[in-house]
């Protein structure tokens, strides 16, 4: 539990939030990180081999 608390203190939630502002694009850093993670998981889903795929092909 104490370990989790120390993790939480890594990010300060006091004060005003952090935002990315680039031309008309305006979003919070938190949302930006989530979008980056989605792109990463999407790429992983495409390129990480699916377990059992090779054996399935052999049997065909």
């Amino acid at each position: 539990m104490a370990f989790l608390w120390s993790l939480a203190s890594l990010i300060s939630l006091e004060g005003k939030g952090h935002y990315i502002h680039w031309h008309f694009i305006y979003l919070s850093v938190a949302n930006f990180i989530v979008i980056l993670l989605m792109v990463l998981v999407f790429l992983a889903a495409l390129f990480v081999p699916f377990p059992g795929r090779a054996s399935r092909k052999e049997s065909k």
Partner: protein
Amino acid sequence: MSTTIERQWTTRLRKRATGKLPPEKALPDTQPAYVASWIYVFGVATIASFVMVILSGFILALRGPQWWHVSSVGHFVNSLHLWSVEILFFSMVIHLWGKFFMAAWRGGRTMTWMTGVVTFLVSIATAFTGYASQTNFDSQWITTQAKDGINATGAGSFFNVLNLGQMLMWHIVLLPLVAVLLTAVHVVLVRLKGVVPPFDDKTGAAK
């Protein structure tokens, strides 16, 4: 079988349903080889997180809208509900990207894609009414900001975001019902049509 029995609506409906979607097709034993990819897992991941959203929502509904502010168990269930929603949208968007880049609306699958699109929009509305039902400063801020935008569209005349009772009812009755029905239709359509073949599959197998 006599013709009167054959003309019964129960008989006709059963024959139509089992003719189009026999049990082996509804719950198949195997899938085409190209389905062995992580990208196909995200539809089911979306269903799994949706089930968690509904179950945690049931518990929140059982105890009522004060509970999660005053009890640590209530707070935990509330967090479970929120984080399941986060995973729901996370996996739904990856599912959507996957289907977009494989143009999974090909071969008569327009309605599969379109039910997906509408489910996505309904989920956003459900999440919005959920944020409006939190009964804290966050929901107060969100609704007082949103009212001007929604009133500007004219929808404010029947959809009043400052009416907590109305937002809660939309959130826990109307919109989840629509989302569950749409998801069911979406998945049945996938089974009816079979998984869309890859672009380079010229054999037409599994069409």
